[in-house]
């Protein structure tokens, strides 16, 4: 049939765009690094497993990894590329991907173009966890670290909002939306109070709240890179259900969708994906709102193509904006850049096209 070819074409194109954005981004920064050097550095990392002779290793015969290439590159450049820029860019791509796909799912789920990944309070909940970890003078119970506290705060808030909005086993979408807004407002008060009492840690907390990728590390990349792909695959598997849900819940039921279960799964998955992203990068706004919109204008409302293209475009968008954020004279949190670029672009779309139509 036709659609798969179209999906592959769009995804292929966007993937190439993402790779280009990433390669360019590696070279850009206070120290400019030539693309050729970058290529060499990357090629130097390519290893092949060979059956070792056991001569160099105490453990005897086994598999050894041998570098294929040995280009001569400045050591400083290698450190900058491998230890600073690459993890940050990869983390940016993963976070952008998470926020955009969760945003696309939430907009479809709520049949509301103003929905974003944090619509049911995920970001606020994560922020409470993170700000508490940063500002409270005592360690959190169970020895929670910032990322874990943020993740638990996000998922926990989503669950709480779901419980509040559920009555007699039914969870009307409108109630969910309003409950989410109310809980967000309440958590906003909690955050403000903690900031007021934060003392010296205020700057760190505010910096986190603005959303940034400054503390990117291979460790964080690893966490997201392991957890995100299976979640994404699951969400993609539900793209047909999301399409049918767009027709309304009763229609979806008549077409064979187990509405209640599907809603729970979609909310759960997208809350986890968003919490993951927020936990490692803070609250980066607008990516989850703008990118799905942009892609919907380009590829249409079908989630089978909208979800994967949003994910790839979100990744490219955040890599590009983060490059901008860190290439200025002084680094600014990328959340500022996404909002500053995203909002005017959103208004432009709003005036030019019928953005309100899903």
């Amino acid at each position, binding site marked *: 049939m036709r659609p798969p070819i179209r999906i592959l074409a769009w995804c292929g194109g966007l993937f190439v765009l993402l790779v280009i954005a990433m390669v360019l981004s590696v070279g850009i920064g206070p120290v400019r690094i030539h693309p050729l050097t970058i290529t060499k550095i990357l090629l130097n990392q390519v290893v092949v497993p060979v059956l070792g002779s056991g001569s160099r290793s105490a453990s005897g015969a086994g598999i050894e990894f041998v570098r294929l290439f040995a280009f001569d590159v400045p050591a400083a450049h290698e450190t900058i590329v491998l230890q600073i820029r690459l993890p940050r860019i990869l983390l940016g791509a993963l976070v952008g991907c998470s926020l955009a796909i969760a945003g696309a799912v939430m907009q479809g789920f709520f049949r509301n173009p103003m929905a974003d990944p944090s619509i049911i309070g995920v970001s606020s909940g994560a922020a409470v966890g993170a700000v508490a970890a940063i500002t409270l003078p005592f360690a959190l119970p169970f020895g929670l670290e910032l990322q874990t506290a943020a993740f638990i705060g996000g998922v926990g808030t989503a669950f709480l909002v779901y419980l509040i909005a559920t009555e007699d086993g039914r969870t009307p979408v409108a109630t969910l939306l309003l409950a989410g807004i109310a809980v967000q407002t309440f958590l906003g008060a909690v955050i403000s109070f903690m900031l007021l009492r934060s003392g010296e840690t205020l700057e760190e907390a505010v910096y986190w709240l603005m959303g940034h990728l400054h503390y990117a590390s291979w460790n964080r990349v690893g966490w997201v890179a392991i957890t995100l792909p299976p979640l994404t695959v699951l969400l993609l598997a539900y793209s047909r259900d999301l399409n049918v849900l767009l027709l309304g819940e009763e229609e979806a*039921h008549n077409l*064979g969708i187990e509405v209640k279960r599907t809603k729970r799964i979609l909310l759960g998955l997208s809350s986890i994906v968003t919490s993951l992203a927020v936990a490692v990068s803070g609250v980066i706004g607008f990516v989850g709102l703008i990118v799905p919109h942009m892609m919907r204008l380009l590829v249409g409302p079908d989630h089978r193509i909208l979800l994967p293209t949003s994910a790839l475009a979100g990744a490219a968008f955040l890599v590009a904006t983060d490059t901008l954020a860190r290439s200025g004279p002084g680094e600014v949190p990328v959340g500022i850049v996404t909002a500053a670029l995203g909002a005017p672009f959103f208004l432009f779309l709003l005036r030019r096209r019928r953005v309100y139509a899903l």
Partner: protein
Amino acid sequence: MSDQPVVEIDAVTVTLGDVTALRTVSADLEAGRLVGLIGPNGAGKTTLLRTITAAVTPDAGSVRIEGESIAGLSSRAVSRRVAVVPQDPTLSFAFDVREIVAMGRTPYTNRFGGGDRADADAVTAAMERTDVSRFADRPITDVSGGERQRVLLARAIAQDTPVLLLDEPTASLDVNHRIRTFGLVRELVADGRTVVAAIHDLGLAARFCDELLLLSDGRQIARGSPADVLTPARIEAAYGATAVVTTNPVTGTPTVTALPDRPAADGRIHVLGLGRTAVGAMYRLRVAGYEVSVGPVPAGSTLAQSASQFGCSVTTTPAFGTPPPGTLTSVETALKAADLTVLAGNVDLAGSLDLPSLLGSDAPIVCVGDYPPIAEGVHRVDTTIDDLVAAVRSEQSEADEHPGVRASD
């Protein structure tokens, strides 16, 4: 299997919030039948359809499809048995028509796999059948109301279910599209599907349905063939409106004409006359709300038939031969009981009656059209058929202002 009803609705009671939407409704629906759900707004038609799809759960009673209770079935299992063409679909997003039709295959597709050839074939066949292939690649938001309705019908066909539910399938369509849609539905019924359609238009319901189920206030008023269900008494019971049921001369099926509520006009009019003019006069006076008596009219004539359908009291005479003596007496009684007499149709019927002595010389007689001269000394008012009701009203109000005049006999 052929003996067993496809849909068995057994004493279903449904409450929505504080409202009892259905009260112990039962019906067995057989394969290859088009069943029309009729009844006033809020009668429970849509609720009954929603009960069959398990979108609402009955408080009491059960629905079985092909012998299986739907209460225990998953959405997927129900959607393989029942397809729905909704009344007011939310289609505000730009899916291609083909995509919308393909959504009908959702009950058969695996989450992790794409659609297979059978799915693609079912979609193509459904689009061919409903004649939507021409605009298969257009967004659903760009097609007209009639086309959209056919797209949703195509989706339901692609769903390939033994039972098809239609909620007001033609409400937003023009006359031509209504007939075409019902023609297509009849074909689906001929294939052996059981189709249940909520229909507002009683004429369409009578014309296309094998069976009607009349609901009112959540109760089942009647069920049976259109001719059995559509009687003035039942329509009054269900809709609270006086109605006239006539036979459509073209389709031969019952046609329902609702009349305004009785109290619109007060008074009793006797129509003396024959032919179309008399039928027209009778109809207009009835619609205006008057109580009407007619006679003498030949038994079996159009006028006699219409008079009984319109709920008028009628005095008939044998079509041939001399009228029996009782006829004249009965006409005289009716004339005396009436507030006004209307002479209609270019027939000198009045000649055999001594109107002045029957009615009193001042009693007005309204003559419609070019009515021939009548007895001397009668208060004659001439009018046209279109102005009849106005003329009757003005004579009535004059009589009210001068009550002494009428009473002088």
